[in-house]
């Protein structure tokens, strides 16, 4: 409060010296301290004087130096505005004066006023006069007094800095306004600056003014600059705050001069960091103050920090909103993929949605065809002629053809830089430990942070895609299996003999193909082609769309047809196997095919060896089986049945005797290990034995006794 005492003292001294009454008010007309001085006229008119001051203080006083103001006709006061940094304005009122040789006129004026009659002559004689000679002196004295009061009040403002900071902080963090509203708040609280703005990075290296708040500054919105250009661009390079006094005389403020009506007299710019690591520039300035004081610099630092936090908060909120959007979209896609039974549709979803999301211009899904060992690629966008080269490279890198076993944790996305200037996010599609394919999505000119976000989303998409693809393809396979099975069983209804023959051929083809070490899908195709060889290839093509069966059947039939002279090596291995097994089961000979092949193929030799071997084995097996079955019937099975065990316990005991452990028994009987354990315990109790060895021994003893 010392500054106010000082202010009061100053008022009194000056008032005494010049015979005036002096008051200092704030911008609402409130007196800061008690009046000083004992001006007689003012003493009489004081209440009216204060009332007049309160009314007049609301005027927009633009001047900065003392002026005479006739508060009543012929009765003057000197008004001096005191502009304190930080936006506060105070007014110094010093009076009352009359002009030289106007006492009579003022006397008339006073007598007309609603006040008690006085000895106006005496009072006016004691009232200071404004004359040509003393005018300048009086104004000068007021100027000096105003300067002293300004110093006092500055001191006071300094003490209020903490309060002001608090106010700014509260405004910044308690309101939910956007950045521009926040700038408005700053301007209204701290009136030293007339505008605040924000410039952030756009495409390439260009920065653009994205926010600007302040009277007559809208034209500055959208102004662009590059790092190093002008006052704002310099801050980007130096990464240091800049304060510019007398900015209207500085060549670095050209962009302000070109875009704004009024020229800023002082400017500041602060680099701030955004959430994505990019820099932004927070700036502001004043059209009236040509100097930024230390106090203002401190406040600018604080406001910049608030703006930085606010910007990061806004970005986090926006990011959160985006994530929510992505999650919503992902849920919808998952739902769609879960109900889509079509493999093709799922592939299209993966390719299209990944392009939707990343907007990098190109995407593809590379899938390994287990049957042909080739790659199938579904692609979108402009690969600039590099797709084939890239797909081959990716397939090699991921060892797609080797059917490498993948651990689920290996299914993480990887960003691959290609020589033709693009980054491609690669997400393996894995089902259990099998690599089904790779989802490859191109990115262009995107920051690592953005790519990482995309990669996470794509990984989720690839995981769901992998499972959906596997389930859908199984569904399709099952549907095909059902169709094949129905067609095969139909043969039995109208031609049982052929059905039996085809059944035999099918078993033989399956065994032979397995022995040849062919891939499982190929063996399956051979077996199904054998089963359906009764039908014409064209009928099968119509009925079983997207299947290789019709092609195998057609080739096999051509091979077996005497009239066609197709070369053996021109046909596929599955067709050759089907032809061999069908010929053998029909004619018990493959001589025709031997001739057609020109006896040059190892497959026919292998098949001949297979037939010979199978026949011997069949004989051996039949003999063995007879002996075993007979022995079993007379021994273990009968003995077990004689025991007081439930049918399930009998089954379990049979397997125990065969040497199966609990886990193997569980697998055999499709029951849990825990259930097996229960059965075994009960068996032990019923047989009154402590363990397996005793149980087995007891069964054999009983068998011995009964035989």
């Amino acid at each position, binding site marked *: 409060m010392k500054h106010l005492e000082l202010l009061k003292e100053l008022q009194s001294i000056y008032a005494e010296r010049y015979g005036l009454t002096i008051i200092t008010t704030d911008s609402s007309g409130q007196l800061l301290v008690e009046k000083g001085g004992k001006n007689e006229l003012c003493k009489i008119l004081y209440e009216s004087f204060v009332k007049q001051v309160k009314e007049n203080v609301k005027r927009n006083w633009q001047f900065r130096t003392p002026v005479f103001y006739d508060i009543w006709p012929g009765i003057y006061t000197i008004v001096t505005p005191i502009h304190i940094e930080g936006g506060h304005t105070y007014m110094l009122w010093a009076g009352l004066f009359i002009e030289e040789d106007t006492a009579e006129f003022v006397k008339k004026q006073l007598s007309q006023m609603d006040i008690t009659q006085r000895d106006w002559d005496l009072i006016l004689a004691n009232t200071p006069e404004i004359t040509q000679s003393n005018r300048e002196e009086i104004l000068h004295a007021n100027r000096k007094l105003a300067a002293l009061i300004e110093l006092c009040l500055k001191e006071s403002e300094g003490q209020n800095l903490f309060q002001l900071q608090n106010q700014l902080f509260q405004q910044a963090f308690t309101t939910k306004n956007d950045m521009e509203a926040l700038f408005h708040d700053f301007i209204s609280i701290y009136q030293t600056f007339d505008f605040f703005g924000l410039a952030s990075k756009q495409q390439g290296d260009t920065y653009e003014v994205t926010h600007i708040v302040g009277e007559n500054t809208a034209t500055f919105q959208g102004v662009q600059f590059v790092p190093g250009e002008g006052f704002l661009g310099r801050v980007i390079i130096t990464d240091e705050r800049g304060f510019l006094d007398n900015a209207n005389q500085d060549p670095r403020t050209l962009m302000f001069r070109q875009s704004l009506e009024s020229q800023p007299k002082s400017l500041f710019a602060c680099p701030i960091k955004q959430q994505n690591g990019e820099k932004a520039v927070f700036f502001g300035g004043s059209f009236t103050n040509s100097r930024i004081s230390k106090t203002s610099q401190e406040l600018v630092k604080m406001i910049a920090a608030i703006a930085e936090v606010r910007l990061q908060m806004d970005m986090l909120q926006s990011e959160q*909103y985006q994530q929510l*959007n992505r999650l919503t*979209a992902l849920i919808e896609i998952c739902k769609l993929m879960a109900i889509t039974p079509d493999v093709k549709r799922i592939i*299209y979803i993966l390719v299209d949605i990944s392009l939707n999301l990343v*907007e990098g211009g190109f995407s593809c899904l590379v899938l390994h065809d287990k049957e042909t060992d080739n790659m*199938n*690629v579904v692609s979108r*966008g402009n690969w600039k002629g590099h797709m084939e080269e890239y797909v081959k490279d990716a397939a090699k890198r991921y060892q797609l053809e080797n059917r490498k076993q993948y651990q689920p944790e290996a299914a993480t996305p990887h960003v691959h830089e290609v020589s033709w200037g693009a980054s491609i996010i690669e997400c393996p599609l894995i089902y259990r430990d099998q690599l089904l394919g790779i989802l490859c999505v191109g990115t262009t000119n995107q920051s690592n942070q953005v790519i990482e976000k995309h990669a996470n989303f794509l990984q989720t998409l690839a995981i769901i895609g992998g499972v959906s693809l596997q389930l859908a393809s199984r569904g399709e396979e099952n549907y095909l299996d059902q169709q094949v099975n129905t067609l095969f069983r139909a043969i039995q209804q109208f031609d049982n003999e052929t059905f039996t023959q085809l059944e035999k051929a099918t078993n033989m083809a399956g065994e032979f193909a397995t022995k040849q070490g062919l891939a499982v899908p190929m063996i399956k195709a051979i077996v199904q082609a054998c089963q359906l060889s009764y039908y014409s290839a064209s009928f099968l093509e119509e009925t079983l769309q997207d299947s290789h069966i019709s092609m195998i059947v057609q080739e096999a039939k051509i091979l077996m047809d005497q009239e066609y002279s197709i070369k053996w090596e021109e046909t596929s291995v599955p067709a050759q196997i089907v032809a061999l097994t069908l010929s053998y089961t029909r004619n018990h000979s493959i001589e025709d095919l031997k001739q057609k092949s020109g006896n040059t193929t190892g497959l026919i030799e292998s098949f001949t060896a297979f037939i010979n071997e199978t026949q011997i084995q069949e004989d051996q097996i039949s003999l063995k089986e007879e002996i075993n079955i007979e022995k079993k019937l007379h021994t273990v099975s009968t003995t077990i049945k004689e025991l007081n065990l439930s049918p399930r316990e009998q089954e379990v005991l049979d397997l125990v005797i065969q040497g199966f452990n609990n886990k193997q028994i569980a697998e055999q009987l499709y029951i849990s290990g825990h259930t097996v354990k229960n059965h075994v315990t009960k068996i032990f109790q019923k047989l009154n034995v402590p363990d397996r060895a005793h149980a087995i021994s007891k069964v054999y003893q009983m068998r011995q006794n009964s035989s």
Partner: protein
Amino acid sequence: MAQKELLPLQMECTMLFQSNPYMTKTIEEVANMLAKPIEDVKPIITLLQKQGIIEDVGDPVKPLYRYKEPAVMTKLSTTGDVK
């Protein structure tokens, strides 16, 4: 930013065309089907066309949009060429 906020609608629009590959519709019809304002759907249609997911099969007076199937390459061997 605005585009990212429209991502769910963008995906919804993609799925609409993908589910109906033979459908040809105007922007107004698409907006109607998605129950969204035309001004929201318009930039999305432009974007999808740019991405090659849909194509304009109409005329300048009445643009009609249809799903464009992605390119499919089969039997690409890692050792040889496309068969």
